[in-house]
């Protein structure tokens, strides 16, 4: 079985925003349309800073491609579905723009494209074609700090599996029991 997943190395990340800008450039042709849902640019990665805790913390939030994805469960038409490669995807031809999936996502990882009226999320067409060609998604490819990885967690020889095997990692809101596949490495 293939289960593609993203990894983000929190302490290696320099918060340069290259992944955010690359997502905007590759998947949305560097559009200047404002992503009003997040108050952000048209990109599938959102920067969340925790500014009131014991120490400042930064998170890059994107679709967690959960095993039991609530956005898929609530979808009325089958527009949001979990593919055989383990990624949660959208079929625009089936989506009716009801936004249930946006409400169901506890990570707020989907945003509304006001031009089409449909939700957008990680991963979009350009990244999927890169993966199909055996390459990394753009956010992983452009990271100057090598703080990102992508691959099959079921393959013990994949880059992501090897990194997970030697790292201490967390998964965001793991206690919700939906098996997120976005691994945040907190310690080597």
């Amino acid at each position, binding site marked *: 079985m293939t289960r593609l997943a993203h990894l983000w190395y929190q302490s290696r990340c*320099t918060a340069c*925003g290259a992944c955010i800008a690359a997502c905007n450039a590759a998947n949305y042709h560097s559009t*200047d349309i404002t992503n009003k849902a997040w108050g952000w*640019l048209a990109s599938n990665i959102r920067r969340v800073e925790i*500014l*009131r805790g014991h120490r400042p913390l930064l998170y890059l939030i994107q679709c967690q491609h959960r095993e039991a994805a609530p956005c898929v469960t609530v979808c009325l038409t089958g527009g949001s579905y979990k593919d055989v490669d383990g990624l949660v995807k959208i079929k625009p031809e089936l989506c009716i723009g009801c936004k249930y999936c946006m409400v169901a996502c506890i990570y707020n990882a989907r945003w509304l494209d006001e031009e089409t009226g449909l939700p957008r999320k990680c991963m979009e067409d350009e990244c999927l074609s890169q993966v199909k060609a055996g390459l990394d998604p753009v956010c992983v490819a452009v990271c100057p700090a090598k703080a990102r990885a992508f691959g099959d967690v079921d393959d013990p020889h994949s880059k992501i599996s090897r990194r997970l095997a030697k790292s201490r990692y967390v998964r965001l809101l793991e206690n919700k029991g939906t098996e997120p596949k976005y691994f945040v490495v907190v310690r080597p």
Partner: protein
Amino acid sequence: MKKKSYGVKPHRTALGTPTGKVEIYSITALRSRLDPLPDNREPLYTRPKAPDEFYLVNGKDDIVSSHLAFTHNAKYLGDRAVWMNPKDAERLGVKDCDEVELGGIDNGFKARARVRVTNRVREGVLFAYAFLGGRRSSLITEQFAYLREGVNPQWFTTGKIEPVVGSAPTNSTVRVRRL
């Protein structure tokens, strides 16, 4: 055959310094008859005294400060607010995203900026990115009006030159007034 000696530790050859040990100091300063070792000197700006007075320090944003990115995403990737510690903000009654007036204690220059309440800056100190906010170029079009937001930390500086290094410090002290 005689063994090579370069791998032997500790090295027996004394270093070519006056003491024969490792010495770290500025030879250029010594030649100029200045004290080659660092010492503490008063800054070239007035130190803050009142509770509404702060040091204003700055640093580089890794995208816009370095490249002046006239791209649409620079609006989101650059932070044009002035950072303030939560304890200072509470004392002054300032909330996140509130607008405040900053007045240079030394030069009296006044400018407005939004506050970002964050623990990324310590008490008594404000932070703003350099070369990011407060751009005043007449070439900035309406599309890039966000470049005018925020402050340029150099507005509040004295312009005096550091005696040893010879550079103009970009740190300053400001008085904060809630609007």
